[in-house]
């Protein structure tokens, strides 16, 4: 589809490429979570000499929260990461123990894959990918500080210093430290330093960033209790099974051998008025309500105490019991994230049907941590004020493995491309959810935890999970970012879809209509028509292909209109705003718009149009001045 054009004037790195000499690595990735892994692997695929430094080499690709990949809005991200050669989709396919396609009845654009993962196997699979990757050196150790070079007034990154004093030198560093910046954990009134149970907090790095003038905010997130499977009375609970014919995330996954692992059920149960009563009477002991947490929590993933207090009219909330693995005894209690004191957690959870005898393996807790206000980044995820520093994942104020992995891939790739003096990898909002996410982060500068939703994408009908490969793999192939067999597979699939749509336009139904016209009707299914026409026999076994073809046809009119919208706005998207543009010199610009534009420095007029507080009159004025400056670069703005 719309491949990114390399001659797009707005797509540039914010800083000139670094000198190649004197560095042991091209880039260093700090952190081994979902962002760090994709960053290191992506950079290595582009040929960069990469180091991945993490203080726990035994926890690479760890799922800190729920044992699941994908979901609404997130499944699309996984497909895009996969289309760019990332590891997340393949690892999820190989270690999934339940696969479901969500939202099947609400339309192809919002349909999204999700799986329950075997937490342990997922981590092993991802660790193996990192260890086995050419060009990635895995280093255990804690990063204490960034090494800086250049004059004191204009520093740039030169590597990292580890806890033992060892220095690793590189012109680029990708920080993917997740929730570990000045992290504090809360369980009731118990407060522990650290970003994850049993782990510590990253204080030195946070202080250094602050000293460098990087502005931060504070978020909180929570996690629910883990229970012992043997203590749960599953018999009376409603089981939730995976799809009968599960679909993998990755196009590289061999369909015949999928799924690899035994598939298991989750179980559904509900809170009840008794549960709510116990939570309410102890609410003063919840750190959020006692005023001990100042961080902003995600509205879309509320703690159970939040649900009870904010939706007081509801007498029950759904609870999913998710197994953490095939051999694991651990059950993740999805839906009751809590930071109430341990004994209160035990008390209220045991009022829930099936959990009367629940044995706790771990209590729920809340984590409070610093994040960097992402408006300080450019669309390559580089920090504007410090050449060579890239940030990805929860450090940018996002939540979720998929959001983190997507940013990791882009940050790693862009850091590598920067050191190689090649054009950056930036997607438009009409090209990828990844583009929507980065644009939202750097332009809107969100101050509450950012999670992907399909409604964030104005061109949602273009950004489907079924066409992620066709949207992105060609670009990845050009850059050398795609996996070895990916470009050919993508081309073959595109050709099949083209061949099928061509045939469908020619073939007629009994009534004389073309099959393509017939398929435009919502209730007509291609898979059901394939048998009537021998020419289509080759489609019969490929349900996924049938669906993709059908979606192409059913959505064609809508896709064309959204495409026209993109066209219409393209001029604005391409109108570059010079980095030294003097907003103060434009009279008539509203105060708020002036302040935000000067701070966020949008690279194009299109980006400026999405800055919160910038209104059409401001844009019109900006357009006039940009045009005037284009015609006469010397002209001073009219006062």
């Amino acid at each position: 589809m719309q491949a990114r054009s390399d001659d797009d004037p707005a797509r540039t790195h914010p800083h000139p490429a670094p000198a190649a000499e004197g560095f042991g690595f091209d880039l260093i990735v700090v952190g081994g979570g979902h962002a760090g892994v994709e960053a290191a692997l992506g950079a290595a695929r582009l040929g960069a000499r990469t180091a991945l430094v993490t203080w726990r080499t035994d926890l690479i690709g760890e799922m800190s929260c729920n044992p699941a990949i994908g979901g609404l809005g997130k499944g699309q991200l996984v497909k895009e990461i996969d289309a760019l050669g990332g590891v997340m989709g393949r690892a999820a396919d190989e270690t999934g123990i339940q696969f479901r396609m969500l939202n099947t009845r609400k339309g192809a654009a919002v349909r999204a894959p999700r799986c329950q993962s075997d937490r342990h196997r997922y981590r092993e699979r991802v660790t193996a990918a990192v260890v086995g990757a050419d060009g990635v050196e895995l280093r255990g150790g804690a990063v204490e500080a960034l090494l800086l070079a250049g004059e004191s007034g204009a520093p740039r990154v030169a590597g990292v210093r580890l806890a033992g004093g060892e220095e690793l030198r590189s012109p680029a560093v990708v920080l993917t430290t997740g929730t570990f910046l000045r992290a504090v954990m809360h369980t009731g009134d118990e407060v522990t330093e650290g970003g994850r149970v049993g782990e510590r907090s990253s204080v030195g790095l946070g202080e250094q960033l602050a000293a460098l003038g990087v502005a931060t905010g504070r978020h909180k997130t929570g996690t629910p209790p883990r229970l012992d499977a043997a203590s749960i009375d599953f018999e009376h609970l409603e089981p939730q099974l995976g799809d009968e014919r599960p679909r993998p995330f990755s196009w590289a996954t061999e369909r015949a051998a999928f799924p690899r692992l035994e598939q298991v059920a989750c179980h559904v149960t509900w809170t009840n008025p008794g549960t709510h009563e116990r939570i309410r009477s102890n609410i003063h002991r919840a750190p959020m309500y006692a005023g001990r947490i100042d961080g902003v929590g995600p509205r879309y993933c509320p703690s159970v105490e939040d649900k009870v207090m904010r939706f007081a009219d509801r007498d029950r909330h759904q609870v999913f019991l998710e197994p953490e693995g095939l051999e694991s005894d651990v059950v993740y209690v999805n839906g009751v994230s809590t930071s109430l004191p341990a004994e209160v957690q035990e008390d209220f959870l045991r009022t829930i049907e099936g959990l009367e005898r629940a044995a706790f393996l771990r209590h729920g807790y809340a984590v409070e941590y610093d994040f960097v206000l992402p408006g300080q980044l450019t669309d390559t995820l580089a920090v504007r004020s410090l050449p060579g520093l890239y940030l990805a994942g929860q450090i940018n104020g996002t939540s979720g493995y998929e959001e983190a992995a997507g940013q990791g891939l882009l940050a790693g790739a862009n850091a590598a491309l920067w050191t190689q003096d090649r054009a950056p990898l930036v997607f438009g909002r009409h090209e990828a959810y990844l583009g929507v996410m980065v644009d939202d982060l750097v332009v809107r500068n969100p101050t509450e935890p950012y999670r992907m939703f399909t409604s964030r994408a104005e061109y949602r009908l273009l950004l489907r999970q079924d066409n992620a490969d066709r949207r992105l793999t060609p670009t990845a192939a050009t850059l050398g970012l795609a996996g070895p067999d990916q470009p050919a597979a993508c081309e073959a699939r595109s050709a099949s879809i083209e061949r099928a749509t061509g045939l469908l336009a020619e073939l007629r139904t009994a009534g004389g209509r073309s099959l393509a016209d017939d398929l435009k009707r919502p209730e007509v299914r291609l898979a059901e028509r394939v048998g009537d026409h021998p020419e289509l026999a080759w489609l019969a076994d490929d349900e996924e292909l049938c669906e993709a073809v059908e979606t192409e046809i059913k959505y064609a009119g809508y896709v064309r209109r959204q495409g026209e919208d993109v066209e219409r706005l393209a001029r604005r998207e391409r109108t570059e705003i010079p980095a030294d543009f003097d907003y103060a010199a434009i009279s008539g610009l509203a105060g708020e718009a002036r302040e935000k534009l000067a701070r966020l420095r949008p690279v194009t007029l299109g980006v400026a149009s999405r800055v919160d507080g910038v209104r059409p009159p401001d844009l019109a004025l900006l357009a006039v001045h940009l045009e005037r400056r284009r015609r006469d670069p010397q002209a001073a703005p009219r006062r």
Partner: protein
Amino acid sequence: MVRALWVDGDAPRAGEPRAVRSGRIDDGRGRQPALLLWMPGPRSYTREDVAELHLPGSPPLLRCAFERLVAAGARPAGPGEFTRRAFESGRIDLTRAEGVLALVGARCAEERRAALALVAGGLAERVGGLRSALEELRATCEASLDFEEAETGHVPRADLERAARAVAEALAEALRWERRRAPSSGEARVVLAGAPNAGKSTLFNALTEDGAALVSGQAGTTRDVIEGSWTLGGTRVTLVDGAGEGSEEVTEGTVDALARDRARGAREAADLVLWVVDAARTDASAIVAEAAGLPAAAPCVLAWSRLDEACATPRPPEEVLAAGRPALWAAVSAVAGTGLDDLAAACSGVLGLGAAQSGALGLGGLPRELSERHGAGLRAAADALAAGLDAWSGGATLDLFAAHLREATDALDEIDGRTTSEAVLDRLFDRFCIGK
């Protein structure tokens, strides 16, 4: 700049804003009395610094002052420039800007009312109400798309559909309202002007099919403003007759003063002033002065009238024609019925009838185009919603319905300039010849 011209009275200094000062300015040829109103930004119409000079209503004096100001570095405002600046500075939204333009161009009480409603934000508020209803619907729909059925955000289809139908009805109602509000007639208004007893009413009766103006040889016979239909090259226009205005003083508060005011109002709303002058007159300079007193906003055609009279000269004095006003003239005799076709052709030509219907003169077209744009926005929104409901009840999925809703919101946004393209702005602010 103003300071350079100011010669005595209170010296105009920045400070004490929004106060009136009186003094005199040197216009290069002499001094004339002036009032100065100083409004520093952002508390001004355009949010920029504004100085207003109020000068005597004498055209020659005004011309001198104008030339002097231009020489000092001022520049006449471009078409719609003040209002464009007010819009660009965020002082007014697009519909309010249009309201100002429409108000200036309003030709009758009905249009003036409609324009005032725009300026007051009537349409903006109405669109705002529709938008929030639509956005509420969209939010519900989006929540339904981004949450699984078991979750809190999910909304049952029937509820969504009910809400959608309510918004569709509100849009239909707004469309009906917009249609009622639209100017009922696009007919150009040709208004007779001239000294009392110049023969306006005789001409009125000759030109209109249903002409019923009272005619007498006595000056000031016509008191009320009356209207009739005149067909110009196949297009009907409204011909308006009212009391004439001469050099005699009229005592305020009398019937004569009332009649004069009504006639003035009618002339101010004219698309074309049909200036009637008695062909027997020879006082050229008085005729030129009379021309200068005609409403400046509308073009003017001269009817060199009563050609049938014994002492009539066949053409107006050269000084009258050389003054640039009227644009065209025709010698006529309403009694003999001569020259009436020439007059019709002149008026038709100046009005641009037969050629481009609207906008050609920078008059008349504005309100029509405005209400068309507003109507089109509302209609596009209503159509998008209807198409969405149609597709949805035909079995299309919710993601597609959501795309229609988005389109409907975009259409509403276009009305008050939330997402207005440059083209729309240019058309609005440049095409219409209105300063402020």
